[in-house]
């Protein structure tokens, strides 16, 4: 599927910690086919991130809620990539 098709959607990807540092930004706008699952976002990150394997412990949030990677996205969604946490 080619970007720019009528059924493509724009979503925001939120990045934190070393992902934010690697991307040089905390937010990316990407265009993906409608209903693309949350778990497919990694392949749309900028190089060199997309060429590395996503961390196995990566989790996702959609519009500020935890979500399973198979959940389809809609236009205007905010997807957050959550690396293993280290707060406290």
């Amino acid at each position, binding site marked *: 599927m080619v970007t720019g098709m009528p059924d493509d959607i724009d979503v925001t990807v*939120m990045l*934190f*910690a*070393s*992902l*934010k*540092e690697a991307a040089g930004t905390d937010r990316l706008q990407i265009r993906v086919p409608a209903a693309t699952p949350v778990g497919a976002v990694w392949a749309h990150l900028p190089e060199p991130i997309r060429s590395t394997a996503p*961390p196995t*412990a990566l989790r996702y*949030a959609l519009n*500020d*809620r*935890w979500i399973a990677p198979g959940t389809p996205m809609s236009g205007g969604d905010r997807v*957050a990539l*959550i*690396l*293993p*946490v*280290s*707060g*406290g």
Partner: protein
Amino acid sequence: MALVSLRHDPLRVDELIAATAGPDHGGIAVFIGTTRRDADRTEVVALEYEAYEELALAELEAVAAEAEALGARVAISHRLGRVAVGEASIAIVAAAAHRPAAFAACRLAIDEAKRRAPIWKRTVHADGTAVWRDGVSAPVS
């Protein structure tokens, strides 16, 4: 004061205690997490915390609610930004009628807050290097 908060300035344990206080409480358990000098190779001078703030607040509120189900009033405050050695990055207060519930709620809250809240730290070393603890740059500890 909100019972769950993210702050960019020093934590105020006294305010958390006041927020949870009540005449039917006989015991207050508090946990304060502080930056440790640590040092595998080079000395740590500070930790720098970053949060996914919206979800971190929601997750800390969920943690506080679970801890309160043990019979306590619970407040959680996490600091963001740079936290020097000896300073507090997280403070948890659990007030209950008796000390077993206060301790249990406090312990549950700190364990779950560390495990679940989308907050990350990087260690800032004396030699100027900094390493994220997020499973990518370095293991979470």
